[in-house]
Structure formats: C-alpha cells, structure tokens
C-alpha cells in the first residue's frame, strides 16, 4: 500500500516536470509556425552565452516591432523598447551544440493594447487571428465553341490597325481594369503560364524594385494596384505617388512582368 502511494506520487511529480523536458523538435516546429503566422512579431539569436542570446533576441524583437509599427502608421515616430515588449513577450530556448538559441515572440494584438499611442494601429483580420472567409474558387469560363466553317464568302473588312503595346503594358492594363477579385483571378489565369509573368501572395516586408502589388478587401473589391519604382511607390494607373502603409490593412498579391 505504502509502495503504491510512493509510485503514484512519483508519477504525479514527473507529470509536473517543467516544459524544458519538451522535445527539441516540437519546440522547433512551434517556432516555425509562429514565424509564418501573421499574428506574431518575433526575433531570435544564438550564442554560447544564454544571457547574450536573450539580450540579442530581445533587441531584435524591439526592432521588428518598431519597423512593423512604422509601416502601420506610415511614419517612424514610435520606438518600441524592452519595457513595451516585456509586457507581452514569451520566449523559448533550445540547445544548439554548445550554444543556446533564444526565440522571443509577442502577439501583435497584445503589443498594440500595451501602449496607448498604438491605439491608432489597425490590424487585419489575420493579424487579429480571426477566421477569414475562404476565397472563392477560380472559375475559368469555358471557351466559346469555334464557329463552323461555311461556304458563304466572307465580306472583306478593312480593319484599321491599332498601335501595338508591349506585353508588360498589356498585363498591367488588364490588372488595373479588373475591379474585383474574380476578374483579377481570371487575368492571372490568362497570363500565369507565360514565363514573363510571375505572381504570388504578398505577405508583407520589403518590395523589390519594379514589382507590382494588388490589394483587395474582404469582399473581393480591388483597393489599389501599386508599382514600386526605385524607392517610391506609385499607383499603377495614375502614376500618383502613394504609400504602402495606406494599404497595410488589406490582403494582397505581388506580380512582376517583363517584355522579354
């Protein structure tokens, strides 16, 4: 009876062992998930000295948060420091040989609610962790049937030649003309097999030169088509200068197109 109680106690105590007994692979998997989630800001560092790894990771998180806020507010007026991220950050440590890896992260919702000046920051549904309605499937309308050949002579019509425009100009024209996501996806479906055209989901971050960005709201309405030219961003249709932060709340696609 006494032995059974001791064994039971041992099992209970083992169950309460701290999280560092958690397998390394599982922690790595969690870090990868957090990195790819729009809900979080994160940073990491590896150092033989665990305190240095933590300090470096913490600085990295502060810089990442400051940069993200700057994009959201359209200016670099707010500097995020450790006293701000301390309130909402969590971290994980894993061993790498003789070194320690520290991964530090915080939820964007927690950061924004931790500092009064950040109340102006608008989060997207994905950043808030809300379930987003699934995008409708691409429906490519079937090609119309080819007309049957007849013996009736066809009247000769003289067509005035319209000046040709380059491939890239045509693509941009077609994308700008698309007013909603359904039409936009038809345009992408038309061009996606052409090696001169490439596209993908825009997940934030720096935009390469000559890249186009297309933003749309939750209802599928196109909010803007932008073009990165050097260090500037302009509206593709009017060439008017604009800023990326004005579109930060919407989802987007990027695309690039060349004439050759």
């Amino acid at each position, binding site marked *: 009876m006494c032995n059974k109680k001791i064994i039971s106690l*041992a099992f209970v105590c083992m169950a309460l*062992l701290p999280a560092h007994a958690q397998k390394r692979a599982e922690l*790595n998997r969690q870090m990868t998930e957090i990195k790819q989630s729009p809900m979080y800001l994160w940073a990491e560092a*590896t150092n033989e000295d665990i305190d240095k790894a933590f300090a470096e990771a913490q600085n990295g998180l502060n810089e990442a948060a400051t940069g993200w806020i700057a994009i959201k507010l359209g200016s670099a007026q707010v500097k995020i420091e450790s006293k701000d991220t301390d309130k909402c950050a969590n971290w994980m440590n894993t061993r*790498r*040989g003789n070194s320690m890896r520290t991964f530090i992260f915080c939820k964007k919702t927690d950061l924004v609610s931790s500092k009064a000046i950040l109340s102006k920051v608008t989060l997207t549904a994905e950043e808030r962790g809300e379930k987003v309605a699934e995008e409708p499937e691409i429906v490519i309308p079937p090609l119309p049937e080819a007309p049957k050949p007849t013996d009736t002579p066809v009247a000769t019509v003289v067509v005035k030649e319209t000046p040709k425009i380059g491939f890239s100009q045509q693509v941009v024209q077609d994308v700008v003309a698309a007013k909603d996501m359904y039409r936009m996806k038809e345009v992408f479906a038309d061009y996606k097999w052409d090696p001169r055209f490439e596209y993908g989901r825009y997940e934030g971050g720096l935009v*390469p*030169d000559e890249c186009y960005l297309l933003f749309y709201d939750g209802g599928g309405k196109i909010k803007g088509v932008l073009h990165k030219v050097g260090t500037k961003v302009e509206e593709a249709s009017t060439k008017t200068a604009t800023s990326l932060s004005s579109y930060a709340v919407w989802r987007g696609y990027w695309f690039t197109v060349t004439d050759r």
Partner: protein
Amino acid sequence: MNLKHIFMGVTLSAVMLPVSLLAEEKEPLVAEPAVKFIVRGGDAPAATIRAVAANTTALLTEFNKAFNENRTLNLSGIAMSDEAFEGINSLWEYAHFFCDDGYVQQPLVNLAAGGYTVRQIPIMLNDPALSGEDAFKEGSLTYDAQGRIARFNFMLPTTTTAGVLERAKDVTDESRRLEILSYVEHLRTAYCEKDIDFLEQVYSDDALIITGTVIKQKKDDNSVIKIEPKVKYTQYTKRQYIDDQKKKFAANKWINVDYSNITIKRHPALSMQDFYCVQLVQDYANALGYKDQGYLFLLWDFRDPDQVQIHVRTWQPKWLDDNHTQELPKEEIYSYKDVPAIDL
C-alpha cells in the same frame, strides 16, 4: 498520505529532473521535414531574389530530408554550379548536416566582385571532430547574378565576423570585407571537403609558406641546464605544401578546421592596396586523432577578382607546451607589420 510520502515524492522528482534533462541532452537530432527560405531585403532584381529563394528553399529542404533518411543527397533540379555540387557532396561525406530552422529569413547581400551572398543559415550536425557530439555551425551561400548557387561554406562564427564588418568604413569596404570573409570561409571549408583543387588554385605558384614547430632547446643558464621550448620555422614551396596536404587528405577519413579571432587589414604599402592581411586562430583536428591550435596569417591578393590568391601563409603554434600553460609571446606572432612589400 503523510509528510513522509510527500518528502519521498519530492526527492524522487528531484532525481527525475536531472535525468530528464540528461534525456533531453541525448535526444537524437531530427531535422524539420521542410525549410522555407525568404529573402529579407536587398536591392537585387526581383527575378534574382525569386531564384535565390527557390534554390535555397530546395537545397535546405533536401539537406533535411537526406539527414532524416540517412542517405546521399539528391541535388538534381537545384540550380547550382559544378563547384557547388561537388563541394556540397564532399562536405556531406565529412558529416551529414541539416538546417535547424523550418523558416529562414536573411538579407541578400551584394559581393564586391559581383554575385550575392546569404549568411547565418543555422546548421546542425553530429561532428566527427567532436566524437559525434552535436555541433552548431552557421552556413553561407554565394550566388551568381542570376541567383544560381555558386558555393556553400561553413561560416566563421558570427561573434568573430561581426567585429570585422562593423569596422567597415563604407558600403564598398563592407562589400570587400564580406568578399574576404567568403574566401576565408571557402578556404576553411576546402580542408573539410578535402578539396585539393581549390588549394592548388588559391595558393600562388611562388607562395611563401612557413610553418612553425615547437622544439625543446637546452639552455645553459649559470651552470643550470634548462629545457626551454622554442619555435623552429621551416619554409616550404607551394608544391611541397600541396603534396603534404594530399597525403593528409588520403590518410584521414575526415579533417576539421575551425577559424576564430579573425582580423582583416589592408596592406599598408600604397603599391599593395588590393592586398589584405588576414590573421586568425586555427583549430585543426583529423580522424587519426591529431589536433593543434595555432596562429594563421594569410596575405590575400585581390588584384584579379576572378583569380584571388594567397601569396603568404604562416602558421605558428599557439602553445609552447603540451599542457597549454605557455603561449607563444604576442610579439612573435606574425602580423601585417612583418609583411614586406612585394615586388610587383
């Protein structure tokens, strides 16, 4: 249940806790099944960035899959040079390794001579130089202008290189320093790969190669005979040095070279502004159980960016005794001040 039971339970868990930590320490390495690589910043053309991201994602994912499956690498379908292909396969013979992160984001940096580089890719391996213990290294990749992989190296420790890059005077100087670090990392990795062709190519035909050996010298000091260690220097030709390395490569299943404490200085002579003096500490170990630690000095010639060469290589032992109590005096360590101006 009484206090005695509680005490025994706590004692048991106090025993179990270090056992569980030990269990965690000995956990076999497992790689994440896929790696996504994202370019974070840089001013390369969009097509190059996409190629870099796609090729790097494919390469790192293949490292991880091959590590988990304990097999040879399958690099077909990944755009890379022949040199990169051979180098990576040679490194794989040294040890299987993997990318210790499922999502890697790094900047794509321009190199002074053209092309690009990505650094600080986290790599884990069971290092034969550490008797199979887990080891962490950082990897770097270089690419040509189209984003095709040109080379994979084990990096010098970031704690070492950060200082070198921080001392850059401007963007051009930083690019040049990055290029030098890339070459030094290539040299270090070449020993692990047993790449004799690279060593033949990188040492100039008239390279000055000097190696120090500790000898015990009898010294008569007021009728008291003392045995003092002294360093004897021997000069080798390039041919002699390369032939010696060939023998070592053939005799050893693996060779590991680590560099640390690196400093880079441009040669002070006005006529040698494209020459750089690199000073570092080298740790060498091989499969036959030989280990040493010494000061390595290299004079690099960057006049022709397509044929960067080493003109001077000196190696001096760091320790003058087997117990590592007596170091080589600092004033005897070869540095850029000792390099004569070469008649060009």
